[in-house]
């Protein structure tokens, strides 16, 4: 559990803080935060240098992704990530949506991507269900 690499992409500092704390409580240590889809994509695309810069902490295995972000939103990110996924070595990387939107169309749209495994609604996440999510993802890998 400790050596799982996690990336949180969310424009809300508070939501990042809350998720980080919940993940830390579960024993996850390697957590990277990005405040927008664009900075997250830049981080992922700069694969080689980040691989060297953060030994053992890059690439992330799980990306927690918010939907509503000002510049590059969650869906824009997913579209772009689908393209670079094969190009770089993100085959084992999965995305868990982390949004406050409870709209079913958002949920359906996100889960259409093969690499999106979960749709978590902010505020409804308990440590227990977060733990289950992570375990399931590790097992599938």
């Amino acid at each position: 559990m400790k050596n799982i690499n996690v990336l949180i992409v969310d424009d809300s500092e508070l939501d990042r803080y809350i998720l980080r704390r919940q993940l830390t409580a579960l024993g996850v240590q390697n957590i990277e935060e990005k405040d927008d889809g664009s900075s997250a994509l830049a981080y992922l695309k700069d694969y080689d240098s980040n691989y060297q810069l953060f030994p053992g902490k890059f690439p992330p295995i799980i990306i927690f992704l918010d939907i509503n972000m000002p510049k590059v939103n969650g869906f824009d990110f997913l579209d772009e990530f689908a393209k670079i996924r094969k190009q770089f070595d993100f085959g084992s990387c999965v995305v868990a949506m982390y949004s406050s939107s409870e709209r079913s169309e958002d949920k359906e749209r996100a889960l259409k991507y093969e690499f999106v495994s979960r749709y978590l609604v902010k505020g409804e996440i308990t440590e227990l269900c977060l733990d289950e999510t992570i375990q399931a993802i590790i097992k599938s890998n």
Partner: protein
Amino acid sequence: MKISSKLMLIVMLTVFEISITLLAVVEISKGAKFHQLNSLHFKYIVQYSDVIAEFEASASKDVSALQNVIINMRQQPIECVETVNWLNVFVMKQINTFHAVDICRKDIDDANNILLTLASYEAGEISREILIAQLRQSARVFNQNSALFEKPITDTVAFIMRVAIPFLVAISLFNILFISYMSKNISGSIRNTIRLLKNGKREKSLIDDIDSNVSGELKTLLNVAQERLAHEILVSEINQKLETLVEQRTQSLTRANEELAQFAYRASHDLKSPLTSSKLLTQFIIEDIESGNLKSAANDANKIYGQMEKLEKLVVGILSLTEADVTDEKVESIHLETIIDEIRLRLLEPQSIASGFIRCTTDIKSEFKSEKVRIVQILENLLSNSDKYKDNAKKETPFVNVTLTEVQDSYQLVVEDNGLGIPANRHDEVFHMFKRFHPAISSGSGLGLAIVKKHVSFLKGQIDMKSSALGTVFTITLPKEKFNEEH
């Protein structure tokens, strides 16, 4: 000439031709009748001669048989004279055959005379020999009359035949020619009209062409058809307009409905998220206190405070947005500098007040009259945005200029600042609810500009946002009439 008149002329000519033909037939048959009467007359003359011979042979004094024959014999010339009409008289006089009628009259007179002679014999005034001599004499005269009558009648009939047949042929020929000409003329004008209509000219010149080239019933027909078509086009245009109107209304209703649904969704979402975060943060604080990590607890408590502040702003924003819908403030004269001073003290940070952040210019001849509460809220929102989103990276000191001018029938309120501005690709979202453009700098309710827009709409004005050389310009145009109408 009207088509109906042309057709009428054709009918009249035909009727005339038929009448002439019928008249000729009648006149010719009249000649035949005369011949017939004359042969009857001959028969009676022969009978008369026989009766005279019988009378002579017998010793009887009875003259009734003679009288009967004479009366019968007198009947044919009477019929002849009665049959002759004024036209016959005219024609016969022209061709010198009128003496036929005179012969008839003489025949009648002769018959009457011999009847008188018979009466004299019965009365014993004349002797039987004289009577017989007179009877023989009269038989000769009758015979002579009959013979003389034959020729003028034959001449008259021949004349009629001679004249009528060429005349009828001439009239028929003329009739055929005239009818052909007329039908050609009628179909020509119809073809001409069709050609005019087919040549796709513009409406105006077509109407002029029809006016000058078409006449009579065709013109009336075209005029009526044109009026009818124009009416129908008008009706269909009106229908189309109504349909468009219904469509527009439906669209705007649908849009309003969508906006309302969007508002409900966003409002509940934005209200919920600080609450859920705070709930989790409270849980963290409890954990931290239990584990003795008081610094982290205080940190989280601060975060809750921030969330509560955000929530408060949002609730206030939603309230003023709904208020903007219902408030019907009275119009009063507004002193712009005064309300800006008030806003300055209420909203700005002390250093902004000191640096003369807000500059205000008014250039109006009359008083600025409007609904004060709305103007205050408009300025409050715009000025606090300018204050929140100052661009400290720029060389110039941050400022916001408020300018009030008059443009024809409206006031123009311009608010320009040199702040961060709004990303060009998101200009169309500016007045939407729950839109935030600089979340990193300040987390407003996302309702400020929506509130401004709503107030401006209520004042029947317009608001427009542009990026300027310095930063951002909001131009609000408020019509003066709105206030004049009501007051």
